[in-house]
């Protein structure tokens, strides 16, 4: 198996400052980038999912809201809908739930990361970007435990550095990268 095909999915968690960070990340991915990207951005419960339009306008990955029972496909990025948790089942399809908030958030990054870690195991990359809380730390730790790769945005390049800092403290991350370099790193896998 070539290293490029080792990874079957990438999960990304972002909070405060996430819109700009996600734009930078997706804009710099190759047009033919093949690994599906699954995103939790903390967002107001009653917001229209404007994030999808903005990220789609970059014309890189096709960006859509994650539907329940959907199987992530190469060439797509999926965004968790506002006010729903996004989980990955053992058969690698999506589940949406309206359970209690986790880390004050719904969708919660930990919920996506922990379930994806078990579904994709060593074939998963987890990325923590800018944010003002510690959501995602436990999830990133779980990804490492299951043999996946952990990447954290260099806190010095984050609009808000608490979330990347918490993630770096929670586990032995594989790569701490400036925001601008994350996409290049993924392109070269």
């Amino acid at each position, binding site marked *: 198996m070539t290293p490029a095909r080792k990874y079957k999915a990438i999960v990304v968690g972002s909070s405060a400052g996430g819109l700009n960070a996600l734009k930078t990340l997706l804009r710099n991915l190759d047009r033919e980038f093949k690994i599906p990207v699954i995103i939790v951005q903390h967002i107001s419960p009653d917001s229209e999912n404007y994030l999808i339009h903005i990220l789609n306008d970059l014309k890189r990955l096709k960006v859509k809201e994650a539907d329940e029972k959907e199987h992530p496909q190469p060439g797509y990025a999926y965004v968790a809908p506002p006010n729903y948790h996004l989980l990955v*089942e053992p058969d690698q399809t999506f589940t949406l739930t309206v359970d209690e908030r986790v880390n004050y958030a719904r969708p919660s990054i930990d919920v996506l990361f922990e379930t994806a870690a078990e579904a994709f195991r060593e074939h998963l990359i987890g990325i923590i970007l800018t944010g003002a809380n510690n959501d995602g730390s436990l999830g990133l730790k779980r990804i490492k435990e299951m043999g996946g790769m952990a990447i954290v945005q260099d806190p010095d390049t984050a609009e808000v550095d608490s979330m990347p800092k918490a993630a770096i403290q929670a586990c032995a991350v594989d790569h701490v990268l400036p925001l601008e370099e994350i996409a290049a790193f993924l392109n070269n896998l």
Partner: protein
Amino acid sequence: MKKSQEEQLENQDIEIRLLIQAIFDKYGYDFRNYSQAHIKRRMLNRFHLSGMSSISQMIHEALCNHKFVDQLLMDLSINVTEMFRDPAFYKAIREHVIPLLKTYPFIKIWHAGCSSGEEVYSMAILLKEEGLYNRTQIYATDFNPVIIKQAKEGIYPISRMKDFTLNYQRSGGKASFSDYYTANYESAKLLDSFKKNIVFATHNLVTDSVFAEVHMVVCRNVLIYFDRKLQDKVISLFADSLTGGGVLCLGSKENLQFSGYYDNFDGLVTGERVYIKKYKV
């Protein structure tokens, strides 16, 4: 991946499957076709809170300790809800469904998976404002008897009334929301006049069958927890319960498109999951 982690995960998944099987064999509550990732999160959460030594110990407790099984059933219930949750949905009901219901001399509504009742009372308020409540019978059901008891009481923390009021206003409500409940220190109690045409009862969508012919089924954010097979079974239950021209209301992320019963329904409101049962397929 470290071998020990892989084995631990495998064992954990087997133990949780056995726990779910034990609850079914002993009590008849069937969660075997629920989302596995969801069930696992809920059960592990209870495991960490319980201080027990293993999930196998939870199986033993579930079989022998009725208090503990009640706790597990509560964990497996979906009890996050609000009055007038998703205001756009209630607005759509007001604008597109109420005119249809007004053509019936008597209206029967089944609210399935009603949890602690917030959304049932929301519908009762809406029907009252539209002059339909006095000729409506609402059946509000949930599998969990503890939650049905709460729903029947219609008492909610006063701290939630601010959000409920905002939702009500966003849904197109014009009256003063505080007229609909009596406040008492920490709690708010819905007026009894909203309860008189509601029958609260336990009904399990997974194992129970049709119990009435109804003009509208409301079942929101329940199907997302089920696998496709169980979703289809429950939608067939709704299709069999509805009269021709009856209305099916699902949650905003629940779609009939992949169901085997898609052809039995037409969409009614763009952007909302509100469907009409065809008279003939």
